[in-house]
Every structure is written in structure tokens, then in C-alpha cells.
């Protein structure tokens, strides 16, 4: 059953900014990549640590794991470099009435 979770107001997520939300014991990072809002599980599949403290490449829409350097595609959750090789979950993002929401199920 799909569920819609409120993240923040749209103006609280300017380009380059990250917001974290928790749903069902999963941390989710919501990123503004040059105007495109993207949501992905905040977990490196290599060591299960957080990704949100890593560098976000706004042009490529990727995040680099701060511990071992694996790069994840924020649009799909697929790792683009080792040492991570298992994708993490990504989530659709919607904006309505100035409020950012993610769809989870």
C-alpha cells in the first residue's frame, strides 16, 4: 500500500540541499539536484553507513560515500563505482501546494 510522506516545504530545499526523513526504520535522503528533487535510501550498500554526509555532485546527480568512495546515482540508487555493487532503494518525489512529499510502499 503506497503512502505519501511529507518531507518539508519546497523553499526549505534549495538547490544542493539535503533533507533526511525516516520511514519504517529506513533513513531516506531527499536532494535538490539543480532543481530536480530526488529521494534515495540514505545507506551505502557496501557497509550500511550513511551517504548523506558525502559529496553530492549536482551536475551528475550522484552522491559519493564518505567512507570508501562508492558513487551512487541519486535518480536510481544504482552504484556507479565499486566497492558498492548492490542498488539501494529510490523513491518518487512530488510537490503539491509548496510541500515536498515522497511516495513509499
Amino acid at each position, binding site marked *: 500500500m503506497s503512502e505519501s510522506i511529507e518531507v518539508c516545504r519546497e523553499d526549505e530545499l534549495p538547490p544542493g540541499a539535503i533533507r533526511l526523513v525516516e520511514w519504517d526504520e529506513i533513513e531516506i535522503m531527499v536532494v535538490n539536484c539543480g532543481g530536480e528533487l530526488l529521494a534515495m535510501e540514505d545507506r551505502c550498500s557496501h557497509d550500511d553507513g550513511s551517504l548523506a554526509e558525502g559529496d553530492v555532485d549536482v551536475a551528475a546527480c550522484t552522491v*559519493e560515500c564518505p567512507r*570508501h568512495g*562508492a558513487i551512487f546515482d541519486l535518480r536510481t540508487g544504482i552504484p556507479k*563505482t*565499486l566497492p558498492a*555493487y*548492490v542498488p539501494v532503494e529510490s523513491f518518487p518525489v512530488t510537490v503539491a501546494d509548496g510541500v515536498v512529499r515522497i511516495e513509499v510502499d
Partner: protein
Amino acid sequence: MATPDVIAEQDALKGINADYTERYGFHDAENYLFKAPKGLTRELVAKISEFKSEPEWMLEFRLKAYDYFMARPMPTWGSPMLAEVDFDDIHYFVRASDKSERSWDDVPDDVKKTFDRLGIPEAERKFLAGVGAQYESESVYHQVNEALEAQGVIFMDMDTALREHEDLVREHFATIIPPNDNKLAALNSAVWSGGSFVYVPPGVQVEMPLQAYFRINTENMGQFERTIIIADEGSYVHYVEGCTAPTYSSDSLHSAVVELIAKPGARIRYTTVQNWSNNVFNLVTKRAVAETDATVEWVDCNLGSKLTMKYPSVYLMGERAHGEILSIAFAGTGQHQDAGGKIVHAAPNTTSNIFAKSISKDGGRSSYRGLLEVAKGAHGSKSKVVCDALLLDETSRSDTYPTIRIGEDDVNVGHEATVSKVGDEQMFYLQSHGISEEEAGKLIVNGFIEPIVKELPMEYAVEMNRLIELQMEGSIG
């Protein structure tokens, strides 16, 4: 006439690799175009990039890697000897020649003489499809068989590849080993220089090996080559690397990064005969990806160095991919060989083998450190890990650190480990057949490593046996 210095050097080498100094441990006079002062700075990293007239993205890559290197602590696992590495006491960049030549006649005389003495041009004429020779920080010679070149095979040093095939390099560079993977990979990413770039087009079979030879000449030198091998669909290539350095009383550092990409149905074999002098820290990151139906084989022979920490890895990313790691480590006086391998089964019906053999003598220490991982979903995977250690005396040491992680039920995984000592009965049996004690010891060791040595090309197998014999001299009795 031996000088006191030479006699002292010979004493220091007593008992191991007895003629190393004569055969490999010599050094040339330093007629360099540039030699960086000791120590690593942000400015030096930028200067290396400027020297090489690199594109902006590579300069940014290096500087970011420098920050990673400075921020990361030294690993606390592995060997206590790691604490002896002094990053401030190393020359990070030494330029011996201003370009990589395609004819030995154009290589500076001193450098050419060194490679002549090591037998490289002769080997090239006899049984190699291409040769790369790196002296200090950069390649001085690279040549590939014309017929292969006509088929589209690229075999050149990494600096030249970055200039001539920038898009191909950029597409693959650091995708297998990112700069922040570990401290030494970050260091290599910041100051990398030289190494090989190999691309084999779809379906092309490179029947004879390509060889790269790495030579350190300067005292307190750091060599940081960067190698990428891409075997496109259905192709095959065998790459062989060898390395030596002069024997000095202070330490040098060799820290390479090697990335292999075997596309669907391709096969890459990567053979190393590591014979650094016993004052070299050899801290290397090697990793491969094998796509659907592809095979990657690492044949890794470690004889030299003060400390080697090296665990070649294969990530089996496509269905039915196969990975193979054959490892020999030989540790003598003052040496620690911390070797092994890692295999990750990330796709169904993938197969792998790790065969590791280590020999310790005269107080040397060898360790097997390995990982076997079967990811969730990699059903039907099969793997066998065998690690055998041979101790030649009471003062030597062997350790095994195997890690196995299995995330799937429907798999077949085997692990065997043995530690044995050359027994009195074995020695007595051979000696009762009229074989001397020393010969008997050599026979036992050669029999122990034979399953791996037979996988080497014939010329290297002969060299390997000779090196093992040298290591064994004077060790029994």
C-alpha cells in the same frame, strides 16, 4: 673488487635471494630531468599534473584524492610494519626521461643499460606481444606488436593514454577503485604516474603476453603506477608485470592501483612476479570486474619487498562469470608477506577458486587474508578456497585470516587450510635416496608450489623456480 659498502650490503642480504644485489640490486647514477624534494604537499600534486599537461578534471581528481589521503588514518590492521612507513621521507615524483619511446635506441643510455641487464629487450624479441618499461615515476618505453595494433589493441603508458584516449580513460578511471577506497588508493590517486593502459577490442585474442616492468632506482623513492585493462566482449589478454629495485638501507614505497574490466565473454589473466628488494613497502590495491560469462585470473607471486599487503579481488557481476586467484608468498628474514585475495559473487551461477600457498623461513612471516562473499541473489554459485602454508623452521610464522559471507542458500562453498612443516621423515626419505639435505629442501618447496608455478608462462616458471632456489639457499642445515 668489493668495496666495504658492497660487503655490508651482502651481509645484510645473507641467506635470502643470495645474488639479488648483483642481479637486481644495482643502481645507476642519477641524471634526472626532475626530482621532487621529499614529502607530499598540495603544491606538488598540482605540479605533477602541470608537468603532464593534464586536463582540468584530472587535476581536480588528484587534489580531492590528496585531501582524502590526508584525512584518512593509516590502517590499524594488517602488519605492525605499516607503522614504519614514513610518508615524509619519500620522493613522490622523479622524471628520468621526457617521453616514452617506441624504440630502445631512443631510451637514455643509462636507463636502457638497466633494462638490458634485466633482460627485458631480449624477452620482448623472444616471446612477448608488447612491452612497457617504467623507470622511477614514468614510462621510458612502450611498444606493441604491429599486428595487434592493426587490430585495434591499445597498449601504452597511462600518461600517454590520458592524452590520446581521454574519453576512454575517463569513462573507466577509478570506477573499480575509487580514490577514497583506502588510504593507499587515495595516495596513488593523488600522485599517480605511469602504469599501463590496455584496451582489447571485441573478439581479439592477444595470444602472447603483454609485459610491463617496473624499476625503482632512487633511494627513498615512491612509485605509484596506475593501470587499467579493458578486455572488450569475447577478447583475451594476458598481462605480466615484474618489478625490482636496488638494495638500500632506507625504505622505498610502491603503491599501485590496478583496475581490470572483463566485458561479457572476455578473459583477462594478470600475472605478477614481485621481486622488490627488501627495503620496499609494497602496498597495492588490485581489483577486477567480470561481467556475464567473463573470466578474470590473478596469478600473484610475491617474493621480494619488506612488507607486501596485497589482496587482488574479483567482483563477479554477470551470470556465469568466473574468478580465479592463485597466490604464492615467500617470506624470509625481515619480510612480511600479507597476501591473499577476495572474490565477490554478485550474480547467479558464478564460480571461483582461490589457491594460496605461502612459505616462511628464517623468521619470515606470511599471512593469508581473504574474503569470499556470496551476495543475496547469487544462487547456484560455487567457490573453493584452499590456503596452504609451509613453515621451514621454528622461528618463522604463518597466519590465516579467512572471511566468508554467504547471503544465499543455494550455493556450494568449500574452504580448506593446511599448515605444514618440512618434516624429518620427508627429509630422511629423500636423503636416503642420495639427495643432499639442501636439495631435498628445495624439492619439497618446489613440489609445494608446483600447482601454481605450472600456471605461469614457461619463461616465468623457469625464473620463478630459480628465484625460489635462491631463496632456499643456505636455509637448511
